[in-house]
């Protein structure tokens, strides 16, 4: 470097005297061109890899935690999460997650993969990226309602993208998935899969060849279509039937589950795990544990599920109280860490909680704290079967067809699974009522944002709103139905950001508020 500078100096200084300027002193590779990063790329593969990894921040990050806290699968117990638990999320809090949906690693790169793949005639990769686009935007529409879509990620034409009505976004997603399915029906050259030219850029269905990937993603596309038909069925009941029809082509076996990819390296670890290590501000929710306990008591669930998700950090001498095979071994928190509400009491009688005080007698997360490579299930066979169950139950839109729904609920219950963890098939039978279908989904889809969407549509399971103040004991207003727009979007695209909705508003797909239950003894709440 120094030598080169010296020659440049001599060149510049001396040649200056004979009237030629030193034109290349100020430009060239490493001088005015970035020597550190890739600036040109023709192969969509690396961006597709980035997209898959970045999605962990969207689907295992704060959005998943918010959905989990609002549905009381988990509870915010410390610091900022006490506030989030009681629906106090500001625009500033949500900003990083709003941004992550649209920028590189999100929608923007999903589009880039499509463009690069299309330019190379790689319809497989393009089709897969369209499925990802639908998944990301569908999740955004679910959390925020109206979001920019038709004009999004297209800076040259739309420097200030308009917000599209939520129902239109869902419509557009259906069309996008239809296009994806068409793309995935074509064969042709692709870089994906083990035989795809040396790169193995597919992480979700790693090891599958191109034809298998097209088949898997076609199933995923149909399940997503079914999922988003359900999202809109509250206002368009005909969509139940469409959801059922789509789900029939959806994920056909639990071996085809769409699981996020994680590896051993710290920066490839499961985001739930990383968050737990860094912060630990959320702990198991009482509503979830109590529901599973009640199902166990009714003989329709088994303790394996609790054992997989949780453990009691109290040390219990063998024979000295409940043990891990006893559901009474597990206890969860109420919202905002309030242990004093019904269902939130702590240690099992006889347990010697050597570890902590009252707080410590509650359960902690098992896999979240112990399995950095756990692959969070995002779109699964069980979800697909339960969509079929609900669609069948609803019949043409107003029905309560338990019989039609029963086989699908039974299928889901016969293949209980979380990610790669298979549980023993559940004992007992459950009539396929809407409550049972949704509760099955609630316990199966732990920390999956679909649970919040289901709750908003069906008001199952029964959960009481969180207290209104951090230290208050009174149940607060209803459970929040959406989250605020990101602060940066408001300050840069304010004219387009809908001003009406607050965190207490309901999105267009979900106009009906749920009944407000309370914690009071003798509750209207079922559990």
């Amino acid at each position, binding site marked *: 470097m120094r030598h080169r500078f010296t020659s440049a*100096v001599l060149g510049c200084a001396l040649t200056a005297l004979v009237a030629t300027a030193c034109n290349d002193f*100020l430009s060239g590779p*490493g001088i005015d061109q970035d020597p550190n990063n890739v600036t040109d790329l023709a192969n969509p593969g*690396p961006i597709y890899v980035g997209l898959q*990894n970045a999605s962990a921040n969207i689907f295992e990050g704060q959005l998943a935690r918010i959905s989990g806290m609002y549905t009381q699968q988990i509870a915010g117990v410390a610091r900022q999460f006490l506030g989030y638990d009681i629906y106090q999320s*500001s625009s500033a809090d949500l900003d990083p997650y709003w941004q992550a949906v649209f920028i590189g690693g999100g929608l923007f790169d999903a589009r880039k993969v499509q463009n690069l793949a299309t330019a190379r005639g790689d319809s497989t990769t393009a089709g897969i990226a369209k499925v990802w686009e639908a998944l990301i935007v569908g999740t955004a529409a679910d959390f925020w309602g109206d979001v920019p879509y038709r004009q999004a990620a297209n800076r040259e034409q739309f420097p200030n993208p308009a917000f599209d009505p939520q129902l239109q976004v869902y419509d557009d997603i259906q069309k996008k998935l239809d296009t994806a399915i068409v793309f995935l029906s074509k064969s042709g050259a692709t870089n994906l899969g083990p035989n795809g030219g040396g790169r193995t850029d597919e992480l979700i269905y790693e090891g599958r060849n191109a034809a298998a990937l097209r088949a898997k993603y076609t199933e995923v596309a149909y399940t997503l279509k079914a999922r988003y038909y359900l999202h809109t069925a509250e206002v368009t009941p005909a969509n139940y039937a469409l959801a059922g029809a789509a789900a029939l082509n959806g994920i056909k076996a639990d071996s085809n589950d769409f699981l996020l990819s994680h590896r051993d*390296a710290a*920066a490839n670890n499961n985001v739930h795990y990383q968050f737990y290590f860094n912060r630990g501000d959320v702990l198991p929710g009482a509503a979830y544990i109590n529901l599973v306990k009640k199902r166990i008591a009714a003989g329709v669930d088994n303790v394996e599920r609790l054992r997989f998700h949780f453990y009691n950090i109290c040390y219990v001498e063998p024979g000295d109280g409940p043990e891990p095979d006893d559901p009474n071994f597990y206890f969860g928190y109420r919202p905002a860490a309030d242990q004093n509400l019904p269902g939130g009491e702590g240690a099992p009688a006889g347990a010697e909680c050597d570890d902590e005080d009252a707080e410590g007698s509650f359960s902690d997360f098992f896999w979240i704290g112990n399995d950095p490579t756990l692959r969070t299930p995002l779109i699964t066979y069980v979800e697909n079967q339960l969509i079929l169950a609900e669609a069948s139950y609803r019949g043409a839109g107003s029905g309560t067809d338990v019989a039609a729904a029963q086989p699908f609920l039974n299928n889901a219950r016969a293949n209980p699974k979380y990610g790669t963890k298979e549980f023993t098939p559940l004992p007992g039978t459950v009539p396929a009522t809407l409550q049972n279908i949704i509760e099955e989904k609630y316990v199966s889809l732990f920390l999956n944002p679909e649970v919040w969407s289901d709750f908003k549509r069906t008001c199952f399971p029964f959960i009481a709103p969180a207290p209104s103040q951090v230290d208050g004991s009174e149940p607060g207003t209803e459970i929040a139905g959406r989250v605020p727009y990101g602060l940066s979007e408001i300050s840069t*695209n304010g004219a*387009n950001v809908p001003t009406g909705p607050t965190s207490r508003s309901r999105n267009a797909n979900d106009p009906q508020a749920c009944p407000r239950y309370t914690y009071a003894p003798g509750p209207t709440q079922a559990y």
Partner: protein
Amino acid sequence: MRAVLRQTIGALLVAAATLAAPLAAPAAAQQPTTITGRVTSEAGQPLTAATVAIPSLGIGTQTGDGGRYTLLVPGARVQGQRVSLQVRLIGYRQTTREITLSAGSLTEDFALPTSPLRLSEVVVTGAGTLTEAEKLGTARSNVDSTTLLRANEPNVINALAAKAPNVQVLSSSGEAGASSYIRIRGLTSIAQSDGQPLFVIDGMPVDNSTVDTPFSGTNGGTIATNRGFDINPADIENIEILKGASAGAIYGSRAGQGVVLITTKRGHPGQTRYSLHSSSSFDQVGNLPDLQTEYGVGTAGVSPACYTNPTTGCNVGFGSAGSWGPRLTSGQAFDHTDEIFRTGNTFDNTLSISGGTDRTTFYLSAGSLNQKGFIKGPNNKYGRQSVRFNGSQQVTSTLRVGANAAYVASSGDFLQSRNNVSGLLLGLWRTPPDFNNDPYIDPATGLQRSYRYPHPAVGSELETRRYDNALFTVNEPVATADVGRAFGNINAEYYAAPWLRFNYQLGSDFANDERLEALPWTSSSGLIGGKGQVIRGSLRTVQVDHNLTATANYTFSPTWSGNVTVGQNLNSRTFRQTGTQATTLIAPRPFNLFNTTSQNPPNDTRQTIRLESYFMQGTADLYDQLFLTGALRNDGSSAFGQNSRRAWFPKGSVAWSFLREGEGANRWVSFGKARAAYGQSGTQPLPYNLQTPFITTLLPEGGWGPLTAPGVQGVGGLYTTPTLGNPDLGPERVGELEFGADFGLLRDKADLSLTHYRQTTTDAILAFPLPASIGYTAQLRNVGELQNIGYEVALNLRPIKTTNFGWDVGFQWAKNKNEVISMSGAAQVVLNAPFGLGSFPQAVVREGQPLGIWLSDDFVRCGRGLRVEGVDIDNTAGECQGAPAGALYISADNVPIKDTDGQYLVADPNPDWTGGVRSSITWRKLTIGGLLDIRQGGDVWNGTRTALNHFGKTRESVTYREGDQWVFGQNYLPNEKVAGPGAGQPTELGQAWFTNQASVFNGPASFAFEDGSFVKLREISVGYLWNRPYVTNRLGFSSVEFRLAGRNLATWTDYSGVDPETSVVSAQASVVRGVDYFNNPQTRSYVITVTLNR
């Protein structure tokens, strides 16, 4: 653009031709002239080191012992002409005598009158230009070696504290090797520079950056040293601070934040001099917060089971990790406030040898600094070994060549600190009083025990301790920086004709900095959760600078003379950084990448900025009282976009000495000068913002800690950077208009300097926020406009000055008002916030506000149009109706409630004004001096306090813990006006209040702001100079000087934390100042200095 080049080149060609001319035509040989003489003060004392010169011939020397000098004019240049023989010495009036040069010997003695105003002193004005103090069109701020040595600061930046108006210095902590930050006047850039001035040593721009170890956080991890620390203050002769854009315009696009010009010591002809400067300082911890020792660990008065019924392997959850447990009986409590501090010491020795002949001079020095910090354990120390050689040789009568070179080896050991669960004070101060940190190693298992994991289980070596035991932190983690640095230049000065001087300088500054930051097994920090971590980083900076100037002196008439300088500057700066973060140690030691199992994606960055510049400056001295200067610089930078690759920076100044001795001076006003200057300088953009690359940087999950790599092992991943490139990016431009006046008063018994400036930054680079829905979150654009308006006053009084007794007192006062004038439609830009999360404040840029004003959530207050539970409180009786705006709303539960939706501008980190008072008394050989440093205003966010509130460790959490007699606005928060249904009602505070509203985690961030005003006793010293004849005769020294000094001995402030002068970010972030989050405290020091001169 080409035309510009051609013209410049044309000028250089003319210059080159002139350069060649004298070589071609040597003058006829003649006999030399030898001028000898003696220089004394008017009182008759001999003056050494006075410069005696014939400027028109470029010949000079310095007086030696007894004030004697010999000046030889070579025969070739003796032509019977009349020349001016000039004598200068700092503190004396320059005296000039016309003599006629003829062969043979001349004797010229001088008796110099004293001149406290130092008007004739030569002032270095940058890029090879010089002038005299009287001719300066801008305010002069100068720090000489005496002042520097009196400060006795190992870091030269700290030595500048309170030395000149509007020069603010902020030391990040008192830790050995801690960085310091200097800001001159206001911030002129939003995010493109670190807000610090350009540092130039002997004409060579040098690096003063502070770079964190790769992967070590700016809020956590360890601190870093600013590279200015590499300069040995004992080698410095003089520092000129070019404060503003007009003074520094000759440095163009690098001078937007001012320039600090450092001149190192030279040898002088005459006897060889030896000087040993030796100082020992004893450093103690400064202010500390007041922590409680009455209540133990737990919650709601109950200890956790882990304490009441301890078992191996139990741990304390976050919910019981505070000191909200039972009241302790005496004898149970440990005060953790200061148990990790000790008296540190610093030994600083510099030996220098200097001397020379009338043709050759040299200065050679070796310095050794060893600091053992004030925090216990082996990991708080800093050492700097430095050597310097400055030499010059008069090769021919017209050519002088020289070299300045310094080599520095420094090594530092640093502690985990700040926002970091492995950090020192975070762990220490959260530790409840009933936990004894000692021993930090559990005797049974040999593993770390901490208050949240008091009884380590066998085999728990890979488990986090949640917060590390502070004694573990001071002893076990390792963080080192080993720096090798060489900087200096070779230079040549050539007089092509008596009126034409060429100056060439080629300098380089090279530093290599090897970092290691390791956390052992069981460390609590971040992702590693007990598994241990090794970070290896390597930082290399290389700067090469070429500066060629030609200066022509001209005299049009006896009343019109001056000079013209043209110059070329080429500069290249390269910063290379590689870093690897590896986690999970295989065995406990060594801390080496080999001993780890997994590595995160590496850091591998190179940045090069090249600069190609041409400049010219002309001066005109009219009637010996009106001094005009005009300059123009053209900069081309590789960091400028293709479409704006070159930029012009003009300046002009005028100084008018309207009153002088014999020219209207009277007994009240002995001298008067008015000055005005306008100039432009700028700030370069950071490189490589012209394109939009794909990147592999880890993606953060919000700000909670999880980080996701875009690729996995074996399969590379990329994503599009969210910052859109801008091919049109150009420099930021700072235009400054400065007016001022300097007066000598009361027969020079006093002087007064007044300055007013208005700086306007246009084209300020703003990370212009874009809606994320387009796929990008920001683009750097030259769209901002900032303004700094300020006043500076310096008044020096010398009321008593007799042979044996003297008393000086100096006052300075400065004010700077910063305002963001325009952001071209961007509503707000969030700066590099120290904590990017909702419940922490954010420093923001907003139109009409000072840069970096704090945006935060707040309590519900009246007058903001808020609704509480659906009620419009401002217009409802019994709520806020009738209450003053801003009154604290007290809910029906009798407590304030957090406003979860609004964000408000709640605090301003910028001081209202700064000032200082300096005084010294001299009686015979004894000197007593002191310096007070004053800052009024400037809010500091004391997150340490509100975090410790949450943990029940603050004194206030005990005061308000029990009873229910607390009333907001009365006996609690008495300065708040209150309204609302609960106003005036008593309530309990206790754990509920301190873990919620008054907590850093759950309360509004606004609650933690405090006024950072202070008065500091910066220096106080007693010195004695021992130079009686027998010292010389018996001991062989010409003089011995003893000094006893205290530094930062007292701070008067209402700030409740460690020190209002603290910063959670090391010196690299420009705007985000005044954040206190478990920062290590400052120190107070006692210093003994002995200087032996021979």
